């Protein structure tokens, strides 16, 4: 805001050639300082981010247990992954959970964001409340939910078959409790993102369409949704990517149980890699998982953005 005021009265706002020599030297060569600003930081970045990625890819082609000697096994780990029931089950659980949680998160947060954006009382108070879960640790909230599912819910809804017993110990339904925690927590950020999108829509559009006799439903379908479709895309991609990597939720609620029925891929990589002596095998799993995540995100972008272009 202040910048135009500062720049306008400058008399030197003339061709570059008329400037003192110090500036002219700058035009040609990059000052060495710029390299000093970038090179050390990027070196550390490469060392702590890129090198680990490469190490992971490298060891995925070996039989390294995390200690001792190792040898190359080619694509052996990857072939074994596809025949491993535990791995396939983890993928099945993770994707099922992530898809359900993504849909629920986006439907609920979009609805809440539209409501928050309407003329309601105590607007900023409500907005403040909805954002609370964002600043809370998933692990700790998860422990609260865990106690609630294990001890409170069976007493409150003692008539409902699945909830009568601790749902977290039910192999078929424990995942729904994890979805509940995940959606409760991640709606906070999604609501804020949708709200940011909704606030970019000019009010005149609604007024003009109301004059032409559009119903609120039609307004949502023809104005609101098209106008925030970019935010919808981002939210869908970010939520799915986040849920696919879920870890804290599961540690807090079920620790992967009962059995391995709620074991996510990240939890499997963690357990096998650190406690199971499967460093190389789980590295291969991680490589596969990363490829899957990137592929899914890419596809999602393509599909959703094509929809965006339609409007």
């Amino acid at each position, binding site marked *: 805001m202040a910048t135009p005021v500062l720049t306008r009265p400058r008399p030197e706002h003339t061709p570059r050639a008329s400037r003192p020599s110090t500036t002219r030297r700058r035009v040609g060569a990059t000052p060495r300082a710029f390299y000093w600003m970038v090179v050390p930081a990027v070196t550390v970045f490469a060392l702590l981010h890129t090198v680990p990625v490469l190490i992971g890819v490298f060891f995925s082609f070996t039989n390294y247990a995390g200690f001792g000697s190792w040898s190359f096994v080619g694509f052996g780990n990857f072939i074994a992954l596809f025949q491993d029931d535990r791995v396939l089950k983890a993928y099945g659980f993770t994707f099922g959970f992530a898809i359900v949680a993504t849909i629920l998160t986006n439907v609920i947060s979009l609805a809440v964001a539209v409501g928050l954006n309407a003329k309601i009382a105590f607007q900023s108070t409500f907005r403040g409340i909805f954002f609370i*879960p964002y600043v809370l640790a998933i692990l*700790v909230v998860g422990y609260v939910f865990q106690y609630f599912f294990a001890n409170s819910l069976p007493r409150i809804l003692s008539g409902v078959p699945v909830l009568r017993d601790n749902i977290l110990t039910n192999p078929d339904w424990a995942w729904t409790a994890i979805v509940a925690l995940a959606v409760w927590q991640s709606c906070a950020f999604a609501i804020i993102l949708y709200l940011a999108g909704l606030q970019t829509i000019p009010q005149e559009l609604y007024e003009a369409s109301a004059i032409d006799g559009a119903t609120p439903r039609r307004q949502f379908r023809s104005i609101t949704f098209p106008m925030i479709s970019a935010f919808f895309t981002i939210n869908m991609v970010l939520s799915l990517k986040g849920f696919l990597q879920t870890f804290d939720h599961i540690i807090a609620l079920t620790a992967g149980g009962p059995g391995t029925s709620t074991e996510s891929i990240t939890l499997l990589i963690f357990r096998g890699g650190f406690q199971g002596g499967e460093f190389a095998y789980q590295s291969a799993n991680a490589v596969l998982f990363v490829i899957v995540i990137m592929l899914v995100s890419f596809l999602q972008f393509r599909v959703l953005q094509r929809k965006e272009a339609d409007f």
Partner: protein
Amino acid sequence: MAIIIDAPAAVEPSIRVPRDPRAVRRINANRTRINWWATALIAVCAFTVLVPLYFAVITALKTPDQLGGTGFELPNSFHWQNFVDAWTLTRFPQALMNTALITVGAVVLTLLTNSLVAYAIARNLHKPFFKGVYFYLLSAIFIPFPIIMLPVVKETALFGLDNQVGLILLYAVFGLSLNVFIYVAFIKSIPIELEEAAYTDGATTWRVYWQIIFPLLTPMNATVGILTCVWAWNDFILPLVVLSDPAARTLQLSQFVFQGQFNTNYSAAFASYLMAMAPLLIVYIFAQRWVISGVMRGSIK
């Protein structure tokens, strides 16, 4: 230019003939009247956000023998002893110090280094080297954490970084991609004439960064600072895999480690959860608007 664009828009409303007089009335009413139906629905939703918090607070205040029932009953007397038990059992002061140190360290290091890298990149994007670095960093946004998890533990152990300092470094490094993206977009909107004037007066590149650019980055610094702070404070998986010394445990990690030791003493466990949540929650309550607008700013690039 601006006048030409504005003129038709200003005239239009008076020309337009409303087709439905009721619609006009509805619009005028909508502009001022509060929508109580929406308010009620939103209130119900907000209630579900608050229920777990209410649940946590009342459970933390009960004695173990009050725990029966649905869990939603108010305690008949406040049992503050739970907090004392949790305080000693989880070694709360030590864990709080560790988390605070790591969070503050991560925020400060991130703000200083990431904005510096972004400044150098933003002002030299037309040069192949800096453009290459920019895209190299951006591509890392798409690499999920699980693949880094196993090797980075080996590496931090090897370099002696399996402690608080290592974590601070990791937060600054892992956040670099996204933060550079946020900063560069903002720095490009700062007029370069400001810097050129400073160079003419003989300032060095470092001084220009520190005295002109860094202060102008304040809104983005707030955004990046909030995102980093919430991440570092609440993170569980990175401390879990990186830290090796029990004395270095963070708040979240100590909740996990001592989970088994609470046995059936759920009240003390809940007191401990509350104490782990409280610091950030209190900051949030007082700086609510600021936090939300900061996060919003980051999300719209």
